[in-house]
């Protein structure tokens, strides 16, 4: 081993690892996943589900609007009548909101219904918007707060996710999108009074470095209207709530987070753990941020740095004259280049494949471990390929 070259390699490896760490942080903050990520995430989420199955929680109440619909006339983009379209029954929603405001016993309201489309107008809108605007602790979904109805702008937050070209499944939730707050973030800020800031280099939450984009673990899920014991899990806006007098339903909301949305019909998205309604995904993202899961522990960065460092040193092993132990398998690997089938050097091909695997596998294992424990995913294959290609030139 050449000591000078070894020290030089140590320095290079440290710099390369630091650069890769910065690249990884930027990758974690990307609003969507790349490459083979989606299928890998889906497959290893199986392990999460085995050890921590998703379940209902008691401090929320789900209110479904899938079956409380109103038909209103609809025009095509050119303004020509195109028929009718169904929207949430705003008369019932107004009644519900009015009662919630009067009871004033809820903890928070997440209303995952957008009112952005200026074409979809009902006679109840002005009263509904005025009621929501005057309520405490409520957030309403929007595509963009600037296009939300004026009275609701202060109460609105973005309810979107972004996918890459061909995908349409939900993967990553962004707490901020293009500088605009997502619903989960607004909820968290209003409930905890915390601060969340975007910088040119990344994001901080209460002064700590965090990631903006996370694959939320679906720990809260409601798959059915009733439990096997017959308990109501998802309450229908009309037939379970507004149809009854206050004395029957008021206590249902006492101290609970009210999740209003389309739980059962249209707003369903495929996630790492089955199909989930949008409102459920947002609430799970809220659980992530309230449990500080977006603030990665230091060991994650250290583990990534160490893995990159070891791989970089391994990549430069010939430069610093690494003396491999004289084991049988090492000798076998050295002699692999001499294996031919006819004119074709099969051994060399096999050696290259094994070399690629040796760069990728540790990274894959580390990245999957980090995903399973922290919910952020780094595409190990891209980095493994980088190392392998670089090793061919060194």
């Amino acid at each position, binding site marked *: 081993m050449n000591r000078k070259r070894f020290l030089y390699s140590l320095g290079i490896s440290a710099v390369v690892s630091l650069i890769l760490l910065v690249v990884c942080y930027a990758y974690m903050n990307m609003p969507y996943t790349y490459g083979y990520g989606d299928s890998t995430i*889906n*497959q290893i*989420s*199986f392990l999460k*589900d*085995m050890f921590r199955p*998703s379940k209902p929680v008691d401090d929320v109440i789900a209110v479904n609007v899938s*079956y*409380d*619909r*109103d*038909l209103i*006339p609809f025009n095509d983009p050119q303004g020509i*009548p195109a*028929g*009718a379209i*169904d929207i949430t029954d705003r008369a019932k929603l107004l009644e519900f909101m009015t009662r919630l405001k009067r009871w004033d016993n809820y903890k928070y309201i997440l209303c995952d219904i957008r009112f952005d489309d200026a074409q979809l107008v009902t006679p109840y809108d002005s009263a509904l918007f005025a009621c929501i605007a005057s309520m405490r602790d409520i957030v309403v979904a929007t595509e963009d707060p600037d296009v939300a109805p004026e009275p609701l702008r202060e109460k609105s937050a973005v309810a979107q996710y972004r996918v890459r070209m061909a995908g349409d499944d939900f993967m990553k939730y962004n707490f901020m999108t293009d500088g605009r707050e997502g619903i989960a973030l607004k909820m968290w800020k209003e409930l905890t009074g915390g601060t969340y800031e975007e910088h040119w280099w990344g994001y901080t939450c209460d002064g700590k470095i965090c990631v903006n984009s996370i694959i939320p673990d679906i720990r809260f*899920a409601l*798959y*059915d209207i*009733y*439990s*096997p*014991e*017959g*308990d*109501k899990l998802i*309450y*229908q806006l*009309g*037939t*379970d709530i507004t*149809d*009854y007098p206050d004395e*029957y*339903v*008021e*206590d*249902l909301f006492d101290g609970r987070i009210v999740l209003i949305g389309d739980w059962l019909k249209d707003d369903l998205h495929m996630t790492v*753990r*089955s*199909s989930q309604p949008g409102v459920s995904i947002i609430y799970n993202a809220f659980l992530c941020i309230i449990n500080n899961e977006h603030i990665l522990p230091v060991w994650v960065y250290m583990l990534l740095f160490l893995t990159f460092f070891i791989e970089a040193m391994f990549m430069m092993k010939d430069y610093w004259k690494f003396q491999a132990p004289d084991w049988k398998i090492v000798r076998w690997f050295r002699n692999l280049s001499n294996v031919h089938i006819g004119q074709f050097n099969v051994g060399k091909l096999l050696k290259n494949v094994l070399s690629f695997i040796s760069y990728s596998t540790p990274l894959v294992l580390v990245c999957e471990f980090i995903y399973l424990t922290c919910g952020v995913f780094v595409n190990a294959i891209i980095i493994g390929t980088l190392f392998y290609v670089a090793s061919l030139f060194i």
Partner: protein
Amino acid sequence: MRKLFICLIVALFCFSAYCAADGDKLKIIYINTPEVVVDGKSLHVGDTFESGACIRWDNPRQVVKVINMTTKKQQILKPEPIVVETEHSTADYMNLDYNLSTRDELQAAAYFFLEYVDDNGSKYTYPLSDGYSLSEIPSKVALLYCHAYSGQDALITDDFMGFLNEFRSSDKLVSYVIDHQEYWDIYKCLMWTLMDRPHCDVDFTVEDVDFFKSLKF
């Protein structure tokens, strides 16, 4: 003193046992039959009973919706086990089947019924599907009782039925009901039931009929 202490402990134990045995009160808020027999007594909507009481089920499709007066949570009681169609299990990671078709057709034909009660109280049931036009239903049908999952009930008379047949699948109907708000709920319910809710198999009683007959459209 020691005896007093033991007596207190025993009394406390007895009281705890009494409290534990005393079930929650359940208030009936919906029954899909005129009444339900609980502990030998006929109960109706608004009545209460204890949570462990013996319910006599008259038919396998009977269902009672109640409010637990202690927790204020709603629940349903049925004679048969509640089938939970959990969409997700660990096995789903291995195999998942998706439909590449709309869900109408067979389900609609099998589960969606239009029910009619004539002046003598006799009940007729007509299966409905997309291919079964409203106009094929005998013109003497006086009532259409739609009970969708949305919980909206509607009564539609011959006149209104004729009106619907005339304007069905027409934009004119939408603009008409917008101009005539009194038809709004009926139109909504009917359209949603026909288009989207293939579950409309609900019995109704003579009292229901009398009540609905008293309404005019």
